[in-house]
């Protein structure tokens, strides 16, 4: 698997480089007080969309387009790298925003002036601290995610080490044999994950300086918005549009014969339990330890699920081997890095006077607005990610509890059809509808309590 490992590494370096460039380009737009908050919010949401969109949707939508590329391997490779870049580059923006450089722009300018005036070199440690922390995090995290991507590669027929390892496992290659063949990519992954955690912990306890006082140029704003839109369109809007166009024709047939209730129920169970547990763990564990707990999750679902298969086949653990526990455990570990980021984000947003005043107020309404919404959003988001998890559930779901993404992935094997597209739409809209209903319900409840109106 050396060849595939090197290819994946080369791809992930390209993607990570794009993420750093995009992060650097967009951060001033997102943080400048000269830009309207509504514009910044829209840009932020557009950046978040492709990062967290289910890869199964993207892979499925582009699967048919990838068929003719069998004769054009270079184009196929370039298309895959482009898809990865469109998906993960916006993460660079989010990371630049969550983990701003340790030194404010003014401080960095002073440092450059001092260097020019004195003619003395600045120690590497300080230079790294001043210029490389945030790009380092953006580079490492996006490189890691691009390195172990599986779903899009599998559905568009790209040969990556993750696809080969999954196929080897599903194809009956004994665990030890498959894992030892994949030792090179696993070593790369572990190395990248450890570096990520090290960089994140350093930055977490640094005093961030995200004030960007200069007004970004029109060109920069236009470029940042353009790339963000391109990314959101390429990974979310276009795939959803393609699937929805096909789904509309298959919806009537699906309505009369929808047979995936059990799978959807299983996914909801894993989604709710896995997401809520990840939130509970991330809330309970101190930030310092959470970084270490995030390492297994950073290694990706494939390695984690395959390791869990082995662990739960030990005699002492066979009692829970055929139960939902291994999958829930793996989902929680997978979600911890995201839960960790969300916790940092919540802390960052809550660290202002308004939140403190809200916490002092003896009323639900301000507390819900200042902290409750963030917590609910985090739980909902984690549950959604757990619901759409494919790789771990395909490997670890107990008999009789096949999840909806695993079933869809199997059905996708027969090619795209109108009914399947309708199924894909329905399966992915179910949790979104539930979350939207819950959100609306809580908002209405809090409003009524605030107004001292009767609840019903």
């Amino acid at each position, binding site marked *: 698997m050396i060849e595939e490992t090197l290819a994946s590494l080369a791809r992930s370096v390209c993607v990570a480089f794009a993420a750093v460039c995009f992060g650097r380009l967009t951060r001033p737009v997102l943080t400048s007080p000269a830009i309207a908050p509504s514009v910044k919010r829209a840009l932020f949401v557009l950046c978040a969309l492709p990062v967290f969109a289910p890869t199964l949707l993207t892979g499925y939508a582009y699967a048919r387009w990838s068929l003719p590329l*069998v004769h054009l391997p270079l184009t196929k490779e370039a298309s895959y790298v482009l898809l990865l870049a469109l998906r993960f580059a916006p993460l660079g923006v989010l990371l630049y925003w969550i983990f701003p450089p340790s030194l404010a722009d003014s401080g960095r300018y002073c440092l450059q002036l001092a260097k020019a005036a004195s003619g003395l070199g600045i120690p590497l440690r300080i230079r790294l601290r001043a210029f490389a922390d945030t790009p380092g995090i953006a580079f490492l995290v996006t490189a890691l995610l691009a390195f172990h991507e599986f779903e899009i590669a599998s559905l568009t027929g790209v040969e990556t080490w993750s696809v080969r390892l999954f196929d080897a496992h599903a*194809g009956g290659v004994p665990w030890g044999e498959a894992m030892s063949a994949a030792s090179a990519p696993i070593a790369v992954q572990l190395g990248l994950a450890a570096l990520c955690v090290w960089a994140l912990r350093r930055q977490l306890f640094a005093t961030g300086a995200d004030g960007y006082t200069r007004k970004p140029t029109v060109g920069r704003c236009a470029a940042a918005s353009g790339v963000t839109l391109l990314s959101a369109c390429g990974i979310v809007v276009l795939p959803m549009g393609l699937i929805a166009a096909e789904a509309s024709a298959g919806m009537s047939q699906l309505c009369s014969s929808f047979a995936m209730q059990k799978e959807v129920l299983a996914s909801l169970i894993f989604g709710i339990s896995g997401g809520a547990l990840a939130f509970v763990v991330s809330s309970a564990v101190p930030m310092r330890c959470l970084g270490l707990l995030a390492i297994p999750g950073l290694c990706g679902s494939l390695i984690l699920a395959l390791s869990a298969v082995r662990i739960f086949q030990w005699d002492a653990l066979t009692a829970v081997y055929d139960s939902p526990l291994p999958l829930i455990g793996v989902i929680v570990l997978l979600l911890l890095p995201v839960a960790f980021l969300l916790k940092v984000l919540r802390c960052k947003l809550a660290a202002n006077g308004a939140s403190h005043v809200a916490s002092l107020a003896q009323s639900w309404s301000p507390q819900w607005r200042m902290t409750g919404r963030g917590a609910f959003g985090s739980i909902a988001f984690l549950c959604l990610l757990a619901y759409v998890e494919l790789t771990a559930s395909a490997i670890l779901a107990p008999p009789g509890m096949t999840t909806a993404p695993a079933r869809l992935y199997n059905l996708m094997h027969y090619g795209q059809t109108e009914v399947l597209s309708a199924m894909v739409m329905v399966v992915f809209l179910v949790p979104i509808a539930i979350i939207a209903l819950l959100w609306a319900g809580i908002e209405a409840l809090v409003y009524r309590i605030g107004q001292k109106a009767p609840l019903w």
Partner: protein
Amino acid sequence: MIVAFVLVGTVWAVYSRYFASPEALVVYCAHDAIFSDQVLDRFTEKTGIEVIRKHDTEAAKSLGLVELLVREKSAPRCDVFWNNELLGMIQLQEEGALEPWKGSGYQRIPDKYKAASGEWAGFGARARVYIQNANGQPPRDPLSILDGSDLSRTAIAKPLYGTTLTHYAALWALWGKEATQKWHSECREKGMREVNGNAVTKDLVANGVCDLGFTDTDDFFGAKDAGASVTMTPVRLTNGATICIPNTVAVIRGARHREAARKLVDFLLSEESELALAHSASRQIPLGEVDPEKLPQDVRAMVPWLSDGIPLGELGAARKQCLEWLKGLDG
């Protein structure tokens, strides 16, 4: 901590109550869920025995479950294994993981498609075929296409898994090691596309990206039913034999629900199940005796291929050697 325990406890309770009744029969099924579910549902309807299914991923089927059954041999969780091919079942037989059962279903299956000792029996077969994109033209002779110098518009699944491995094992048994390896490397040198599964091969041909591919009858009918302009011809080895790959079923040694498992095996080997599979979208060819009038036209046309089928039961050693070589190639 309390919240975590409550959550896990609730999931466990829901799982035990709605997903894993202790009386339910556990079936590991390598046959595609969309085809097997209706047969298993019919069994539950007839007998009242609930069936919990564990399916394999459709991309790389069956061998994953075989490996799992080998690993679980000392403490089996599975009662019945419904495999979609034969060679994995022979491996399980050699491992001593299967329990003989010669019930009513076993009796109606021809000797060629069952273990003499009763450990497994075959039913509902599919055949290895060439799929061609007709594009309104009459199909060309596949062998003349394969004899050409440019095979860049032909496709085959990776031979490490599934029915392509069976195909390779048949070539290995018939031609021997050197000739099979030579054929393989010549095909690659001439540019034959090696893709991830028979379904991708089918998609490439159905969408006109390739002109010819090696696949199975169920994939061919999938393309045909979707409206693709495709034709098929059976793959015939140099001795004229076809490659017909039956589903196989067996009771697992140490099954927790032995009686129910035997009932399911008898049901799967019955005429009713074979007819249901013949009428399903996968058009499986019945192995036991059935009234030809009850068969759909597509299946009736394939029945003669069965008598020419290569005896797959003798391919165990060839498969093992071929797989070792392919793994070496794959690095």
